[in-house]
């Protein structure tokens, strides 16, 4: 296998919103390489629809403080309040900066950036919905991704397109508080099958989510958690992995996202009796309650026999009362999805929906500068950064509010990029990366030369099915123990997978095998965290422990796998602030 060596001050892995925003921040300060296994414009940021919240107060009174309150409450008080304050304050700068970068926000009649309602975002600490989401029709993520990519093109950012990250190398360093620091990154070039070692002082992971651990998901096929899983295997802990958001309105069976903007524009959820059931659950904000509550409400309707269809397993999203011109202007893409995939006209027919695996609140633990921390003492591992969905700052706590992910990627992408660019100017090289590729070479050779009988698609299908049935919206010790046993079995079988394609050129057969390994490892982290957490908080709901338990569980989970494969748990306190935990009523 050919190996190429490069040397860059900094490497960014992933070219979605977080990676691109970080890249822009390093331009002119250091030599940066941006690696992506796709083309940047294929990244899943582009699938985000509804908007990006910021208390601009362009259309009604609002404040960053209200936004912070909503974020903390929405996250069921597992949010680190210092991080949430920063995000909500810097949201305003971030929107203005995106406008300056050219983002085509929808405008008010006065020519200012328009804003609309979104789930969980309220006026004055919960009095009622507030218009806080800045948007570009229902393709806000597409416009953010395009705009940031355009700015990278303007700045001549160094992209390595279609490079699949394989490994990160650390070297011992007595001066590092963590005992080691980053020295190189290893990636597999899809076009040639060659390996590339990037000797570097720092790496920022921005690899996005891992929703493909679940069967029904809004996530792209390529969202396989490549960053967090490789760090997990290198002994870096993962934080709050048990908190996985199910978006209430995925297209039935397919899981394709129908934005919360549909409800922000007035859409209503209805059960088989045509009842607007969210009025019972959240009398004040109704259909615009946070996603964890709405997803549970939908599946409770289904459980109690009020679902729709032959299997009574879905409910309806009703847009039929909205003016057709409002649908065309504000929700063109999602209504097109409905026409394409369901063959129905959303202006006149109600849309079958079910909750869909959407967003990982947990991930690589970082502080507010994007520096990765490796223990419950917040010890920084020098040179290692993360931002966006693959990271856990934690601004989303146990349940992310709609639009806060687009905000997260631009705010913490920028902060991470800035911190990394400063860091690399003050340190020496940690090595030349020679030999760093050894494990990656072995991993690829093992997959290609295996004569086992296990198929990637078969194992992946079983994993997704099990995770969906037993570790999704409702969980118990029984279901989680069962899925834990399955994962152990799949890990064993994964050692015997075989692929058809043995060649060097664009070998996606091998890539899918590597991605499956990542999905299995991350599923393990999700389930270990979920079994231990004997309470219900945000997106993590235990039928056997249905109450939130602040006395014992107001803490972040850290799950760590050591070199021998043993998994251990530790916990670190939530960063408090002005907001005391209270019951979440909406």
């Amino acid at each position, binding site marked *: 296998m050919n190996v190429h060596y490069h040397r860059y001050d900094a490497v960014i892995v992933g070219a979605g919103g977080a990676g691109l925003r970080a890249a822009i921040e390093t331009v002119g300060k250091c030599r940066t390489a941006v690696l992506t296994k*796709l*083309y940047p*414009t*294929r*990244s*899943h940021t*582009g*699938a985000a629809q509804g908007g990006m919240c910021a208390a601009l107060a362009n259309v009604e009174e609002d404040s960053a403080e209200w936004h912070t309150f909503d974020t903390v409450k929405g996250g069921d008080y597992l949010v680190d309040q210092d991080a949430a304050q920063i995000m909500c304050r810097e949201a305003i700068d971030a929107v*203005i900066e995106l*406008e*300056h*970068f*050219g983002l*085509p926000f*929808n*405008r008010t*009649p*006065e*020519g*200012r*950036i328009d804003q609309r309602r979104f789930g969980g975002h309220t006026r004055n600490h919960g009095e009622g919905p507030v218009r806080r989401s800045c948007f570009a*029709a229902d*393709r806000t993520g*597409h*416009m953010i991704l*395009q705009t940031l990519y*355009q700015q990278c*093109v*303007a700045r001549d950012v160094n992209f390595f397109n279609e490079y699949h990250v394989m490994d990160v190398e650390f070297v011992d360093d007595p001066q590092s508080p963590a005992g080691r620091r980053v020295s190189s990154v290893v990636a597999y070039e899809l076009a040639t099958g060659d390996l590339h070692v990037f000797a570097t002082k720092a790496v920022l992971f921005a690899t996005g989510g891992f929703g493909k651990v679940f069967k029904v998901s809004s996530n792209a*096929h*390529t969202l396989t958690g490549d960053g967090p899983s490789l760090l997990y295997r290198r002994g870096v802990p993962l934080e709050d992995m048990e908190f996985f958001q199910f978006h209430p309105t995925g297209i*039935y*069976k397919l899981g394709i996202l129908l934005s919360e903007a549909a409800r922000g524009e007035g859409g209503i959820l*209805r059960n088989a009796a*045509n*009842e607007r059931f969210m*009025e*019972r659950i959240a009398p004040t904000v109704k259909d615009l309650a946070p996603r964890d509550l709405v997803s549970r409400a939908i599946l409770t309707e289904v459980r109690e026999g009020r679902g729709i*269809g*032959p299997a009574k397993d879905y409910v309806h999203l*009703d847009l039929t009362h909205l003016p057709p011109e409002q649908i065309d202007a504000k929700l063109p*893409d999602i209504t097109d999805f409905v026409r*394409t*995939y*369901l*063959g*129905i006209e959303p202006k*006149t*027919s*109600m849309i*079958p929906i079910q909750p869909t695996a959407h967003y990982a609140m947990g991930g690589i633990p970082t502080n507010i500068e994007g520096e990765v921390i490796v223990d419950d003492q917040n010890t920084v591992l020098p040179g290692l950064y993360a931002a966006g969905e693959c990271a856990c700052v934690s601004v989303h706590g146990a349940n992310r509010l709609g639009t806060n992910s687009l905000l997260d990627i631009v705010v913490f992408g920028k902060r991470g990029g800035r911190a990394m660019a400063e860091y690399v100017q003050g340190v020496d090289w940690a090595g030349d990366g020679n030999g760093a590729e050894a494990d990656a070479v072995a991993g690829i050779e093992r997959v290609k030369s295996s004569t086992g009988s296990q*198929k990637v*698609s078969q194992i992946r299908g079983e994993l997704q099915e099990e995770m969906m049935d037993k570790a999704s919206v409702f969980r118990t010790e029984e279901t989680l123990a069962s899925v834990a046993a399955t994962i152990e079995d799949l890990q064993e079988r994964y050692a015997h997978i075989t692929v*058809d*394609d043995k*060649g*060097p*050129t664009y070998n*996606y*057969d091998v890539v899918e095998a590597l991605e499956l390994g990542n999905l299995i490892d991350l599923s393990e982290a999700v389930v270990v965290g979920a079994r231990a957490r004997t309470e219900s908080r945000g997106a993590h709901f235990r039928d056997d422990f249905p109450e939130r338990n602040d006395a014992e569980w107001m803490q972040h989970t850290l799950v760590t796998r050591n070199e021998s494969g043993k998994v251990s748990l530790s916990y670190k306190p939530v960063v408090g602030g002005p907001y005391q935990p209270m019951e979440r009523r909406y």
Partner: protein
Amino acid sequence: MTMAPESPTPVADPTTRSPGSRFKLDADGLVDVQVKIKRYNPDVETKPHWETYTVKCEPTDRVLDALHKVKWDIDGTLTFRRSCAHGVCGSDAMVINGANGLACVMLIQDVGPKITVEAIRGLPVIKDLLVDMEPFFAQYRSVLPYLISTKDPGYKERPQSAEERERYDDTTKCILCAACTTSCPVYWGNDEYVGPAAIVNAHRFIFDSRDEAREQRLDILSKRSGVFKCRTAFSCSEACPRGIKITHAIGEVKREILSQQV
């Protein structure tokens, strides 16, 4: 409990959607789909060949699902790009039954139980359905596809009226899938032509009231490789999975250049 005043519309059940008479469903509601694919693997052969596979699909499956069934169940060497699987990332443009489109937005029931798939034309085929996208992105970069503004707007948003915003709305939808450019007969014959996608992305800035580099872009597009290569075949507009009125946009750019020369 609050009930809706009346049932607004008949309930549409996706499981009862009629796939049409071309399909003979088996007891599981599946249909045999023949997928004929133009295969080429540079690691083992010197020229392409056709291969036909039969897979079981639901009529509402995507063409992408059929390709996945081939790759996952029959032949893992089949190679194509894909990511989001719902028409927003632009990875899986290919020629399906003779026409350009995204495999993830075309349903089996709409294209029929016999499907022919090959790589998009006009870009070098590397392996199976996967082409070299670099020439395409180089053409995109050549039109300065980013907002250029030298005025310091200060710490505030620049105003833009809803009408000014609407002026370039359509061309902001582009996902750079290359379906348009690789459907263009002029592009097939002349790869120096920047192609429809690059013009779309220039249009997006030329008609943005905040941009200041309109003359530069019009200058680039008035060259031999630019808009006047377009013969108004409308292939690009038909191919666009985002429904962008591309030929119209190209016409607007042509008119801008001509009006400047007067």
